[in-house]
């Protein structure tokens, strides 16, 4: 998994009992993990496809398959945890692919993998001890071992590049990734604030300006709009000028 939030072990330990306090929360958390793992799986398989380095290709494929397995395990655990918790709307697992290898190149991508996997290791260690002795504890334990492998192989690759005399490049790549992660976190919170502002603005619009237009729309409405209607005069234009118009 690529964990993208930055929190210390201490904070994670402190937050765990609250974040995982009831079956609904547990199920939601696990579904979130399943989505994140699926997103990483897609990115790793895409990276395996795009790289021309055979060794990276093998490692990325294995990594991608691990993440797919994790996603499935989390999804199954979420289903078990949500027995009795009614799911009203269908929630599909959703994660956007990030296309990072294409955007960043191999070294920076591996640096990203290393940093994110280290965070995943920290997070899952906390959760594995928080849930020690339960099925969920065993699940986190099993996944933790894979994440440790992802952490090790990516570190090994970075070390190899360092040994080849590319230490400066590696350091730069690590720094760039840390900056990007901060930037991504900032943008995420920015977007959240932005969304809130937009919603507030819309609410103002909706309660002030919209009612008038709503009234006009109602008055203009004739019948229920069902039934066949013939084509209008401009509906069948195939001239280039009309095709240029987005309306």
């Amino acid at each position, binding site marked *: 998994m690529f964990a993208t939030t930055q929190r210390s072990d201490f904070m994670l330990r402190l937050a765990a009992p609250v974040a995982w306090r009831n079956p609904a929360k547990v199920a939601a958390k696990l579904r979130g993990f399943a989505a994140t793992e699926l997103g990483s799986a*897609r990115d790793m*398989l*895409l990276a*395996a*496809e795009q790289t021309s380095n*055979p060794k990276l*290709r*093998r490692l990325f*494929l294995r990594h*991608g*398959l691990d993440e*797919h*397995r994790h996603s499935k395990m989390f999804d199954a655990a979420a*289903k078990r945890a*949500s027995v009795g918790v*009614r*799911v*009203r*709307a*269908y*929630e*599909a*697992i*959703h*994660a*956007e*692919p990030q296309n990072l290898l294409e955007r960043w190149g191999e070294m920076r991508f591996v640096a990203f993998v290393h940093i994110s996997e280290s965070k995943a290791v920290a997070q899952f260690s906390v959760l594995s001890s928080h849930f020690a002795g339960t099925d969920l504890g065993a699940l986190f334990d099993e996944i933790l071992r894979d994440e440790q492998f992802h952490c090790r192989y990516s570190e090994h690759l970075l070390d190899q590049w360092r040994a080849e005399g590319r230490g400066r490049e590696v350091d730069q790549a690590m720094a760039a990734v840390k900056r990007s992660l901060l930037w991504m976190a900032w943008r995420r919170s920015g977007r959240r604030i932005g*969304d809130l502002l*937009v*919603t507030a603005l*819309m*609410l103002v*619009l*909706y309660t002030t300006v*919209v*009612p008038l*237009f*709503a009234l006009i*729309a*109602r008055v203009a*409405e004739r019948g*229920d*709009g*069902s*039934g*066949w*209607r*013939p*084509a209008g005069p401009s*509906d*069948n234009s*195939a*001239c*280039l000028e009309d*095709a*240029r*118009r*987005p*309306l």
Partner: protein
Amino acid sequence: MTLQRPIVLGINAYFHDSAAALVAGGQVIAAAAEERFTRVKHDSGLPLKAVAFCLAQAGVGIEDVDHVVFYEKPIRKFERLMVTALKAFPRGFGQFSRATARWLGKRLWMEGELCEALGAAPEQILYSDHHRSHAASAFFASPFIDERCAVVTADGVGEWTSTAIYSAHNDAQGATLELLAEQRFPHSIGLLYSALTAYLGFRVNNGEYKVMGLAAYGEPRFCSEFEELVQVDDDDGTVRLNLKYFSHDRSSDRAFTAALEGLLGPARDPADSLALPAVSEEDQRFADVAATLQQICERAMLGVARHARRLTQASRLCLAGGVALNSVANTRIAHEAGFEGVYVHPAAGDSGGALGAALWATHCVLGVPCSTPSKSSGLGSGFDQAQVESMLSDLRVRYRTFDTDEELYAFVAERLEDGDVGGWFRGRMEWGPRALGQRSILADPRRADMTDRINRKIKFREAFRPFAPAILDDDAGTHFEVGAATEHMTPHMLAVVGVTDQGRATFPAVTHVDGTARVQTVSHRTNADFAALLEAFKRRTGVGCLLNTSLNLKGEPLCASPMHAYATFKRSGLDFLVMERCLVSKAA
């Protein structure tokens, strides 16, 4: 390759099933859905990867393209969203704020968006119309381009239109696609189907197939409840929804209201499993609701088709739009609507709009003559033997290479006869949602336990969904009720037909509970590689038929690349995987 002009790139984005298609001088060069590349099922973003693929396949850059055609009119669609939200006032806030934020953000300025993301110039951009794009995809790819045709399009909703009838005509002077009549949002057979898909616990724009499969287990015993929900005029297919049961006017993520549960009983929890044939009354109720819905959908589509026949006086019909993926309804139209031939575009859903938009611009706007039907299958990405070998070598996977295709066919036929299930990745990827023998999972349809095995160990999907047979077209008539009426639909698996007694006895794994099958007929002329494999299987077993399902796992798009195919193989219980002339086995 030197391409003929004009070079036209069609794009569908920002709804669902984004896609791109490239047409040069009237010839379709490439077309693919974005989901295949990003691995996000029904991906709705700008299809950047699909565009890159189309351009690469044609060997051109965006600057070489004469026109980029967007598949609908964005401002008209925005207008509909706004008017709908206004009419729903004060309950439409969610819809209003989401639409305003999303559309004012970028979608409304499509020209800028396309220019920025694709590097196109503003003067390159054209706009088709949602249903016109569907209609063009159906007509120009049909075998009827020399005749006057009726074209029917039906889906959830485009800009405003939900169902449309066109008259299509094509000769040396050019082509016309004339809209004759339309039904408008919110009265839509597609939205009805979607809302009930959600009610039945499946995902909208994704689970409609499952509803169709589920319907076979039920009886249409909810007709009087459905009378309250929707009125259908059998004579002309007019649909009138009772809006108190639907919420698409005020919510973009909930399709039905509490009143629907009052009418039909509680909705199905998506997390619950469905046991079919039903052991519980609840599961039977869901199957019966699905059966009633299916019957309504068939009545409406039949009515529309009959109306189209009256309006156009044409003897041929072309179909597209999401509802045209309802292969049970398609078969009834073929038999009962009075047409002599019916064609359905293989990418009848919204992805097909990308190709339709490009074809409409090429033939109707730019006046390029259409002398042969457009290619409509095998338009996706392909990989040669060297690319597959190099990937497998990189991965240090043990594989076997066959010297000739014939040896490969013979070997695979033997493994399938022995009961193995194999992945088949050859040639260029399919256009449209169905696997047609380029990205398929194949098995022996004579084994009754095969359905269960593939569902449990390979695809991990719902046990009640049927598998389809692919059969050599010369042999199809003995086992399946195919004939002239469905001959233009079965090559793309777009008709569900009856299975004969002999077929039922021979192919238990592909006969659905109601004695039907969504058969694919395979001809040497149009699908030579797959036909040759079926021929090899026939030499061993006497039947040129295989179970054919898509090469993917549950909830994932069809595999587009050797890497996806190999990863799918590793993650499933597939016994072997063929990629071009390479074979990878689990046992090895």
